[in-house]
C-alpha cells in the first residue's frame, strides 16, 4: 500500500514525527553505546527495565527489533538464516529473526542490535524466551539473568510472589557484578516514578479510545507503544506520551477519528500485530468503516489492568512500585506487576479482560490473530471465540498468520475472510 493511499484512509498522527525521531535517537544511542563504553542489556519485552535503566544501562529489545524487521519485510530472510543453522521453522519468528540477525548481520537492519554486556529475560510472556535466551547467551557468550515468574491459571499464591521477589533482589547485585554499575535506591525511585507516569499517560491514551469515533486505531497504538516497551522510565519516553495524549485529546475535541471514513464498526484486536502487513490489514478493515479502538497487545504494557476492581480503568491509583526502592517492598511491588501480566494468567482471566473490553469500548466484534509464533496468545482461541460470542453476542473472526514470518500469511484468503466478516457485521 502506498503512503498516499494509506494517508487517504488514516489520519496521520502529528506526534508520529516525534516518535520516529525519538526511536531513531534511541537506536543511535544503542549503536554508539559500546564505543562510548556505555553498558547495554538485551531484555525481553516483559522484563523489569526500570532496574537496569536506573543503573545507566541502555536497554535493547530483540522483540521490538523483530517488529522492526517484520515491518521492513526482512523477517523471512533473517528467519531463514537461523533455520540454516538448525533452528526449526516451527519456532517463534521473533526468536528466529533475532538469532538470524546474529548469524547474518549483513542482511539485518542496522546490522542487528549492538552486542550486549548482559541479557535479562523474564518468562512472564512465554516459555519460549527461556530457551531463546539460553541460545542468545550461548551464541553471544554473555551472562543471562532469568526472572522466573510462573504462569498461574487463577490467583497467584503468595509463595510465587516470594519467589519472584527473591529473584528481583538477586538481580541487583548480579547487575552490579556484571556491569560494574552501582544501584542507587534514589535513582531507581526517579526512574520508577517516570515509568509509572509514562504508563499512566499511555493508559490515558488507550482509555480515550472509548470515544466515538476512536481517536486511535490499532496501527497507531502498535507504533506508539515502542517507547513504553523499550524506554519507559526515561525522560524522552515520558515527553513523548505527554505529546501523544495532547494530540489524542485534541482529536477528541474536534471529533476526529483515527480513520478518515465514517467509523461504522468497532472491533477488538487480539494478539501481536502482523508486522509485515500492519497497515495493509488495518486499511482493509478501515475501508469497510471498521476500526480497532482496543487490543489485548498494547494493553499488555499498562501494568495496571485491574480486573480485581471489576473494571479496566487503568492508571487509577498509585502504581505499586512508585515508592522509592526499599527492599523487599520495592522488589515485591515489581514482582507483583511483572508476574501478573495478561499473558501470564489463565483463560478465565483473558476472557474477563476481553469481555470487559468489548463492553467498555462498545465494540461490535473481535478479531483473533492465530499467530503460529505466539502460543500463549493463540492456543485456545477457538474456545475463546465461542465463549466470547456466547457472553457478549458479538461475532469473532480468526485470522491465521505469523507476526514476522510472512510465509504463513495467505494473502488471498485473509482479505476474503475480512470482507465476509464485515458483511456479517453489517
Amino acid at each position, binding site marked *: 500500500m502506498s503512503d498516499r493511499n494509506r494517508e487517504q484512509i488514516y489520519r496521520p498522527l502529528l506526534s508520529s514525527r516525534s516518535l520516529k525521531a525519538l526511536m531513531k535517537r534511541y537506536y543511535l544511542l544503542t549503536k554508539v553505546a559500546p564505543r562510548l563504553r556505555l553498558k547495554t542489556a538485551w531484555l525481553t519485552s516483559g522484563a523489569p527495565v526500570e532496574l537496569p535503566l536506573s543503573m545507566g544501562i541502555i536497554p535493547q529489545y530483540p522483540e521490538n527489533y523483530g517488529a522492526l524487521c517484520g515491518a521492513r519485510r526482512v523477517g523471512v530472510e533473517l528467519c531463514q538464516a537461523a533455520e540454516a543453522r*538448525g533452528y526449526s521453522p516451527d519456532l517463534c519468528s521473533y526468536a528466529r529473526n533475532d538469532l538470524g540477525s546474529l548469524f547474518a548481520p549483513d542482511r539485518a537492519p542496522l546490522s542487528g542490535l549492538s552486542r550486549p554486556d548482559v541479557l535479562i529475560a523474564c518468562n512472564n510472556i512465554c*516459555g519460549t524466551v527461556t*530457551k531463546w535466551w539460553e*541460545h542468545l547467551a550461548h551464541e553471544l557468550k554473555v551472562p543471562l539473568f532469568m526472572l*522466573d515468574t510462573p504462569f498461574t491459571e487463577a490467583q497467584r499464591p503468595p509463595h*510465587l510472589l516470594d519467589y519472584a521477589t527473591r529473584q528481583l533482589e538477586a538481580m541487583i547485585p548480579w547487575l552490579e557484578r556484571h556491569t560494574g554499575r552501582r544501584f542507587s535506591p534514589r535513582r531507581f525511585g526517579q526512574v520508577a516514578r517516570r515509568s509509572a507516569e509514562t504508563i499512566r499517560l499511555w493508559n490515558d491514551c488507550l482509555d480515550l479510545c472509548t470515544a466515538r469515533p476512536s481517536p486511535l486505531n490499532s496501527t497507531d497504538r502498535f507504533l506508539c507503544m515502542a517507547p513504553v516497551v523499550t524506554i519507559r522510565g526515561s525522560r524522552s519516553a515520558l515527553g513523548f506520551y505527554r505529546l501523544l495524549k495532547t494530540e489524542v485529546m485534541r482529536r477528541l475535541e474536534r471529533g476526529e477519528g483515527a480513520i478518515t471514513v465514517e467509523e461504522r464498526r468497532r472491533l477488538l484486536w487480539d494478539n501481536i500485530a502482523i508486522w509485515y502487513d500492519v497497515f495493509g490489514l488495518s486499511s482493509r478493515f478501515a475501508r469497510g468503516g471498521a476500526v480497532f479502538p482496543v487490543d489485548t497487545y498494547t494493553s499488555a504494557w499498562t501494568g495496571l489492568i485491574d480486573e480485581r476492581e471489576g473494571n479496566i480503568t487503568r492508571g487509577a491509583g498509585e502504581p505499586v512500585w512508585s515508592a522509592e526502592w526499599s527492599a523487599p517492598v520495592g522488589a515485591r511491588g515489581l514482582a507483583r506487576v511483572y508476574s501478573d501480566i495478561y499473558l501470564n494468567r489463565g483463560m478465565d482471566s483473558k476472557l474477563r479482560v476481553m469481555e470487559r473490553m468489548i463492553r467498555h469500548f462498545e465494540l461490535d466484534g473481535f478479531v483473533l490473530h492465530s499467530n503460529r509464533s505466539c*502460543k500463549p496468545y*493463540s492456543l*485456545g482461541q477457538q474456545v475463546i471465540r465461542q465463549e466470547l460470542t456466547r457472553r457478549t453476542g458479538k461475532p469473532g473472526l480468526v485470522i491465521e498468520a505469523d507476526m514476522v514470518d510472512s510465509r504463513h500469511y495467505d494473502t488471498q484468503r485473509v482479505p476474503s475472510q475480512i470482507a465476509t466478516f464485515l458483511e456479517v457485521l453489517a
Partner: protein
Amino acid sequence: MHTMESLASEALFARIGQLADNPMERMSRLATDGHRMLGMVCPNLPEELPHALGLVPTRLVLRPTPPTRSPEVLQTFCCTWVQALLDQGMRGELAGLCGITFACNTCDSLQNLPDIWRRTVTQPSTLYSLRFPVQGQGQAALEMLQAEIQLWRQSLERLVGDVLEPARLERSTRLFNRIRGALRQLQQLALHGEVGYSVLQAAAIASQTHPREEVLDLLEAALEHLTRASSSPAPGAPSPRVVLVGSYLDHPRLLQWLEQHHVTVVGDDSCSLSRTFEPEADLDPTDPLADMARRHLRRSPCPVQLQSAARRAAALSQTIRRGRAEGVVLLPYKGCEPHAFDNVILAQSLDQLGVPHITLEIDPHLGGWGQITTRLEAFVEMLDGVGDDELYPDSQAGRP
C-alpha cells in the same frame, strides 16, 4: 540350565511387555476394577506422593492414531503430543482417570492445555497444575518447589479424602527406589546387548502406568533369571550402536525396527526412559517429602529448564562414550519447542565430537513411517561405513 533361566526371564519380560501395550486401555480396565488412576503428564512429577495416598499414578502414554477431535480446538502449530493428549481426552478415552496432574511453567503448549481441557473434556475434571521452577538452582527455586509440592499434596488429599501418612510415604519411596534400581540394572544389561532396549522401554512404560507392586515383582524376578542365565561377562553390544534422544519414546515400533535391523540402542536421553530412573531420581526414604524438591533440582535437566542444553550435551557425550555409540538419533516431537531449541546445541556438540547424528521429527502416532524408516535405513548404512575404530581409535576393545 541357562536355557531354562532364559526362557523364564523371556516369559516374564513378555508379561511386562503386555502391561506396556496400550496402557490407557489397560488403565480404563484397572479403573473399572476399582483402582484410582491418576493421570500424570510429566515423568518428573514425584509419583511417590499419589501412590502413598492409594492412587495409581499413570503417565499418559498416548494411543498411536492420528487426532480427529482436537483439531476442532487446537491449531496445527500446537505441539503434536499435546494435540494427541487432548484428542484422547475429547474422545472420552481417559475418562477412567480420577484426575490429571499437569506440569506447569514448562512449555507454552502444555501450559495452555488445562484451560482448554476444562472447556472441551468432560472427564476427568479434577485437574491440577504443579509448577516447576525453570532454573534448577538456588534456595528460592527450592523453596518455591517445596511450596508447590505441599499444595499438590493438599489437593491430592482432598481428592482421596485422606491424609498422607509418613509411614506410607516411606513405603512408597522404598518401592519406587527399588523400581528405579531394577530399571537401571536392566539398562546395564541392554548396554551389553543382553536384552534389547525395547525390553527396557516396555519395562519403563509398565512401571510408569501400571500398579507398581506387580511391575516390581515381575521386574525383579525377570532380572534374577536373566542374571543367572548369564554365566560370563557380556562381550559388548553388536554394531551399529546408537543413542536415542527425545521426549517421550513410547513407540515400540521404532525400537523394534532398530532391533530388526540389528541396530543396538546403547543409551538414551529421553523424558520417559533413563532420566526417570537415574540414581539422582531416588528419594531419601527417611524424609521423602522434603527430598522431593531437592531431587527435582539435582536431576539431569529436561529441555524445558534454563541452560539445559549444555548440560545435556555433556551428559550425552558421556552416554556415547560409555556405550561406544557410533551415532545418535534425535527424535523430537513436531511442535515441541524446548526439544527443538536444545537439539541445535546438541547437534553442534555432536558435530564437534565427530559423532554422526540424524534428526527425525515425529508425532505420537509416527505418521510418515515410510519416510522415517527410509531415512533411518540410510543413516544405519552410513554408520556401518563409519566403523567403530574411527570413533574410538584408542580403545583396546574391537568390534564385537
